[in-house]
């Protein structure tokens, strides 16, 4: 125990009181102040959501509270972190010694992280890892700890918990791993759970399960939750109170319903306006850009509603995909025996007209990205046709096929990884031009400058390197590169998924603006139903490598006909706390695997038309019947 254990346990006193917190990082460019003069409190049993965009200091705040910030090179430069322990003693964690912190961390305050794969040790079994936490803090015997581990796994509602104890992390899906992480975190019945973006890496249907689970466990165990997230939809689902942060400072704090209904600060308003809302375009057949919020002096904001995007021209499709099949072999053992096949894309057919956006939506592993990669020839197709203006790409020679790449271009998800870090931005944008001999000498420079201007950057950015740009700017550069060879089709593979909401809205608007100017056809691959609603003319929902529903966006969103589409829509968090307790179908179960035995292709049958241009799979796919 530390000195002066004076119990000050007034019944209403908060569990955590942070006062004037300052966190600094020493960088080469001087001291970077990640959190500045931050004060807030958390009452026992409540959920405080800290929300902000990347770099807002929300994660730094949680790490400072756990005193883990020192491991990341940071320093608490001032302020108090008062925490009322189980014994009713209030301690200032900012000045606590290492011994005290070891007792608090994991025992009284537990933490779960974004990436459930890397936060579990791959070499130990699930049971051992949970038991370790129990033995460490509660001094339980080996057998007791194992029994406790089993009880915890049952508590987080893992089916077949007993069998899971002896499994290793890699044998579990992402959602299951996050449940195990939660079980580990809760093993010592902490007073406070710090959850840092716990569902960001998960699919929407799994995210809905985990959010609900955290709420149930919170009620059962009476613990408080500090929930860090960038997603306003998730905030609306979980938070009692909300703390909005920007650039290391508190912008606004209040009860969740108030923040959503009457945001006081202009930044909060801008943030909320940028959040794509499912149902925003109900009754509207055409896509529309995000409304822009202009922040005025004194905090007032004005919305400008964009006109609908009526860009589809002509009736002949630019790109047509017929019965596309892409499979991956799974080989085992030293002789590489074929043990199974991943049916990533199974008999997929669709077409895109000039100026049209077709969205491919679905959860991870549904084959939407593989479909895009196969069209782009980054992945070999097993069978089927990819017709570009009626000519089959798969039947062409290698030379001709390579030159066809001018006409179909790709924008990748991660703007940080898709630019070669050793080349200047100008060189990367010029690469398509020089590769296909579309310009030489001075003309290349002029074209690069023009492209940079088209995507809202300045021509003198061409001489810089990718690391000098922010995520949104890099994605603009990637779009400029994709447009360099004057393509007719652009495949955007989760192109806005890695960006902050406000940046996401800008990039989506840029893509739509470019479509209007150049009559581009987009294949917009996304898991985000709300963004899809904004951009697309037509939507194809994929599940286990097959299209289960395809049709005009309005028809699919207003009258989803396939049970999987309905389930996907229901799982999307809605940025409105008032609708938190809406009726939802019970979400259980995992997404089944697309791996099948070598000679056992899944059943694929023709889609049935249920409305004009609206087709639905009427037969069972996976567990949907």
């Amino acid at each position, binding site marked *: 125990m530390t000195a002066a254990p004076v119990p000050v346990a007034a019944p209403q006193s908060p569990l955590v009181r942070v006062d004037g917190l300052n966190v600094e990082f020493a*960088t*080469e*460019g001087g001291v*970077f102040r990640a959190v500045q003069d931050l004060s807030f409190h958390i009452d026992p049993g409540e959920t405080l959501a800290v929300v902000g*965009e*990347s*770099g*807002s200091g929300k994660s730094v705040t949680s790490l400072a509270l756990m005193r883990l910030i020192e491991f990341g*090179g940071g320093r608490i430069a001032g302020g108090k972190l008062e925490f009322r322990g189980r014994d009713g003693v209030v301690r200032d964690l900012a000045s606590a010694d290492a011994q005290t912190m070891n007792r608090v961390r994991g025992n009284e305050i537990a933490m779960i992280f974004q990436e459930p794969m890397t936060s579990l040790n791959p070499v130990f079994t699930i049971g051992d890892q949970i038991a370790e936490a129990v033995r460490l803090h509660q001094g339980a015997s080996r057998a007791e700890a194992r029994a406790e581990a089993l009880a915890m796994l049952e508590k987080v509602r893992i089916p077949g918990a007993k069998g899971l104890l002896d499994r290793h992390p890699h044998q579990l899906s992402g959602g299951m791993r996050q449940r195990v992480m939660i079980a580990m975190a809760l093993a010592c019945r902490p007073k406070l759970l710090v959850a840092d973006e716990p569902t960001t890496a998960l699919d929407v249907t799994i995210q809905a399960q985990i959010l609900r689970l955290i709420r149930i466990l919170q009620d059962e165990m009476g613990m408080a939750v500090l929930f860090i997230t960038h997603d306003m939809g998730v905030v609306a689902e979980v938070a009692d109170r909300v703390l909005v942060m*920007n*650039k290391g400072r508190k912008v606004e704090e209040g009860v969740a319903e108030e923040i959503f209904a009457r945001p006081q600060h*202009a*930044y909060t308003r*801008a*943030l909320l306006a*940028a959040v794509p809302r499912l149902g925003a375009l109900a009754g509207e057949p055409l896509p529309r850009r995000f409304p*822009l*919020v*202009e*922040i005025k002096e004194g905090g007032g904001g004005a919305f400008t509603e964009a006109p609908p995007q009526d860009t589809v021209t002509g009736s002949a499709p630019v790109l047509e995909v017929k019965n596309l099949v892409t499979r991956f072999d799974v080989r085992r053992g030293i002789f590489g025996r074929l043990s199974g096949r991943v049916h990533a894309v199974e008999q997929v057919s669709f077409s895109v007209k000039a100026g049209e956006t077709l969205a491919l939506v679905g959860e991870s592993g549904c084959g939407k990205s593989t479909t895009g990669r196969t069209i*782009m*020839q*980054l992945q070999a197709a097993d069978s089927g046709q990819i017709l570009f203006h009626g000519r089959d790409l798969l039947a062409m020679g290698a030379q001709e096929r*390579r*030159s066809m*790449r*001018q006409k179909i*271009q*790709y924008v*990748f*998800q*991660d703007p940080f*990884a*898709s*630019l*070669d*870090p*050793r*080349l200047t931005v100008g060189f990367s944008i010029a*690469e*398509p031009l020089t*590769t*296909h001999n579309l310009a030489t000498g001075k003309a290349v420079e002029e074209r690069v400058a023009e492209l940079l201007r088209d995507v809202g950057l300045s021509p003198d950015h061409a*001489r*810089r*390197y990718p*690391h*000098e740009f*922010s*995520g*949104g*700017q890099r994605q603009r550069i*990637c779009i400029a*590169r994709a447009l360099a*060879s004057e393509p007719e089709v652009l495949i955007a593979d989760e192109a806005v998924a890695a960006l*902050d909401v*406000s*940046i996401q*809205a*800008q990039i989506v608007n840029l893509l739509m603006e470019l479509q209007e100017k150049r009559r581009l056809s987009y294949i917009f691959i996304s898991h985000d139903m709300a963004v899809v609603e904004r951009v697309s003319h037509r939507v194809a929902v994929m599940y286990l490598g097959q299209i289960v529903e395809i049709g005009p966006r309005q028809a699919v969103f207003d009258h989803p006909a396939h049970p999987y589409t309905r389930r996907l829509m229901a799982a999307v968090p809605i940025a409105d706390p008032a609708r938190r307790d809406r009726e939802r179908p019970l979400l259980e179960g995992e997404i089944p695997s697309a791996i099948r035995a070598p000679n056992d292709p899944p059943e694929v049958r023709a889609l049935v038309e249920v409305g004009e241009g609206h087709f639905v799979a009427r037969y069972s796919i996976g567990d949907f019947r």
Partner: protein
Amino acid sequence: MSTATSAPAIVVASDMRTPLGEFWRRFRRQKVALVAGAFLLALLLVAIFAPWIAPYDPATPDYMAILQGPTAAHWAGTDAYGRDVFSRILFGARISLAVGFLSVSLGGLVGVSLGVISGYYGGLIDSLIMRVCDVLLAFPGILLAIGVIAILGPGIDNVIYAVAVFSVPIFARLARGSTLSLKRAVYVDAARAIGVKDRVIMMRHLLPGALPNVIVYFSMRIGTSILTAASLSFIGLGAQPPSPEWGAMLADGRSYIGVADNVTLFPGIAIFVTVLAFNLLGDGLRDALDPKLRMA
């Protein structure tokens, strides 16, 4: 949107940083490697200007002064023919540096090319190249070099080929490793999506990524190669007398080690210091170039 929600301006220096400038900024902090580099630069100048610097002709015997210890006239003494050991070491630097640099360049060029091709294409090509490398690696380096000399015949030119051969598999593995990890990078997919040819992808997007490791290994390997070349000369397979090769000088002097240890001592020191300098330089380069150590 608005200025209020623009991305945070974390770090990022105001001026432009080229990869080369970035490297120099990091390398400058490696004091030991800087000293080693300066020494090697000086050695290179000495080697180039040896005919003008050396006080005596390295091959002219002086039977009036044989097996002398270090004196004011002969800083490192004289050998059994009365030749000035110091002058011979200065001329020997030409041979050792040339052998080290040329053999590693040759081995590196072949090895890196094979490694990048092997890593990029994979499959049968990869298996073939890597199995050949495994076979080459199964021999101790010196034995392999002796084998090559046995086929080509003794002589300093052939030592270059012999030492190059045993550098090939190591460079191939190194380049293959970094190619394997880099070819999964999204920007390589992006280049393929643009329609860039395989050859260009390897040269432009994969090779530069492998270079930092190759450069580090290149400098260390020169040290090893000098040592191997000296060993070959020592056993009489490399430079032939009266060539002032360091290894050959050791061999010459070993019969007189009891009467005049300076004849073996000074060439030995030359080999030792040069190899050490290359290794220290390599260490420094690695610290400056290794992306894994760059996190701090």
